[in-house]
């Protein structure tokens, strides 16, 4: 096999159908970029669940009189509540968060929104027991047991809020993958179409090749490589787009929540881990599409 010959044929082919080639590259890049975005969201979700499920607690908020009257929790009903919580099976730890501590934490969380901090008064925040469960699924037991007990304002599971957040993120991920699949279909049709066009514009060459006894590989390889080259360029474009999106867009817009440790930072390492997958998908799809197209539609 003479590589120089094959590659000069590939270059000619790509140049001749330059508009189709560009369309093929752009569609492939968009599809792969979306796929990469979806994969990055998956990584984000993984990281977030690590951070959050570690921190998930059940909060037993205390009534106003306990919050102000028994700050150190040395009187009834606070003492009983604490003991009751500590003795419930499945409870790992119970920590009292006083009104002042709650306010301090509030200030920290909303550091970047001073006007909100300005508005809030410590009096608006109840004291609470932060209860850590060995198994977060045991929440209903705690809720049933302690809701309505003297001194208890309400029992809240932070997990339900997190579930909503993760539902949202999963939804975004699924939508991204869905669009990636639709775009991917468009990319496949374009690749197929471009190869057919390419084979048509080179029908004289291909006819002569057949006639003089070129093997199937020799006739097909330039077309296959054309599709591969476009696919790989598309993949690189998608990777570059992801890097740009990370630095120019994600890091800036999400700067505050990332600083506050609410949303984990996506590092360049995440992009690097996702990239080979995109390349692999690009190579696989363009090779298979190319091969099938040549078999089905092009007489070589």
């Amino acid at each position, binding site marked *: *096999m*003479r590589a120089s*010959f094959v590659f000069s044929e590939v270059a000619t082919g790509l140049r001749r159908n330059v508009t189709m080639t560009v369309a093929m590259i752009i569609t492939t890049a968009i599809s792969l970029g979306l796929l990469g975005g979806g994969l990055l969201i998956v990584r984000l979700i993984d990281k977030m669940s690590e951070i959050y499920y570690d921190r998930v607690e059940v909060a037993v908020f205390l009534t106003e009189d306990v919050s102000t009257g028994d700050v150190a929790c040395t009187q009834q009903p606070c003492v009983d509540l604490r003991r009751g919580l500590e003795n419930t099976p499945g409870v790992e730890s119970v920590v009292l968060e006083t009104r002042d501590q709650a306010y301090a934490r509030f200030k920290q969380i909303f550091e970047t929104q001073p006007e909100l901090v300005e508005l809030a008064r410590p009096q608006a925040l109840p004291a609470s027991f932060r209860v850590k469960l060995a198994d977060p699924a045991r929440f209903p037991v705690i809720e049933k047991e302690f809701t309505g007990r003297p001194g208890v304002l309400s029992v809240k599971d932070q997990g339900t809020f997190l579930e909503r957040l993760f539902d949202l993120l999963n939804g975004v991920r699924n939508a991204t993958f869905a669009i990636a699949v639709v775009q991917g279909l468009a990319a496949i049709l374009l690749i197929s179409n471009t190869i057919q066009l390419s084979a048509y514009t080179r029908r*004289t*060459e291909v*006819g*002569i*090749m*057949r*006639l*003089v*006894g*070129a*093997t*199937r590989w*020799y*006739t097909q390889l330039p077309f296959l490589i054309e599709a591969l080259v476009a696919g790989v360029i598309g993949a690189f474009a998608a990777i570059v787009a992801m890097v740009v999106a990370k630095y120019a867009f994600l890091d800036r817009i999400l700067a505050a929540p990332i600083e506050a440790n609410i949303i984990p930072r996506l590092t360049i390492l995440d992009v690097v881990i996702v990239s080979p997958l995109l390349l692999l998908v690009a190579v696989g799809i363009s090779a298979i599409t190319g091969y099938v197209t040549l078999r089905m539609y092009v007489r070589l």
Partner: protein
Amino acid sequence: MIRLEQVSKVYRSSTRPALDRVSVEVDKGEFVFLIGPSGSGKSTFLRLLLREDVPTKGNVFVHDWNVAKLPRRKVPQLRQRIGCVFQDFRLLLNKTVAQNIAFALEVIGKPAHTIRKVVPEVLELVGLEGKAHRMPHELSGGEQQRVAIARAFVNRPLLLMADEPTGNLDPDTSQDIMLLLERINRTGTTVLMATHDHSIVDSMRRRVVELNLGRVIRDESRGVYGVGR
């Protein structure tokens, strides 16, 4: 060299067979004219030899190959030993004369040093030395056909098939092309030429196989185009 045994070919779109129980044998080194009106089966004859089609019935042998039974992946080997020339030359218009000839060798994987050696040789054989770097559109029809013949011959085929090679050329140029084909024939290459050209067939006095409605109606060793035409 070529042997057709009771070969019939029926195309799906037609009720009448394109070839009807045709048996022809051509020895190595022969020069054979294949004549007959349009639709008589000449093109089908050539297509079967090249394995562009397979016969509906009968056997086709070229050299050592049972063509109809040849596995797909071996078809290129057959075609590498058959040179083809057409009425419309079929040159690549964006390549020079030398590149056109080299192309036929490149695509079957011949090494570059071989190509550099044999292309000038074959250009000399067809009388086009000095025109290696011309583009096809800068050449006359006769010269273009010489390039096509050079391309067909450059890999030293066992069999050269020419389908109306003089169909687009004036009588003088046609004579030149025939002299060239004769010269190639003298190197031992079997030449099979389908033609309508009376004067050429009559003047060469070579073997003539005449087809009509898919049948061989005449096979003469030193024939003319036809009596009373």
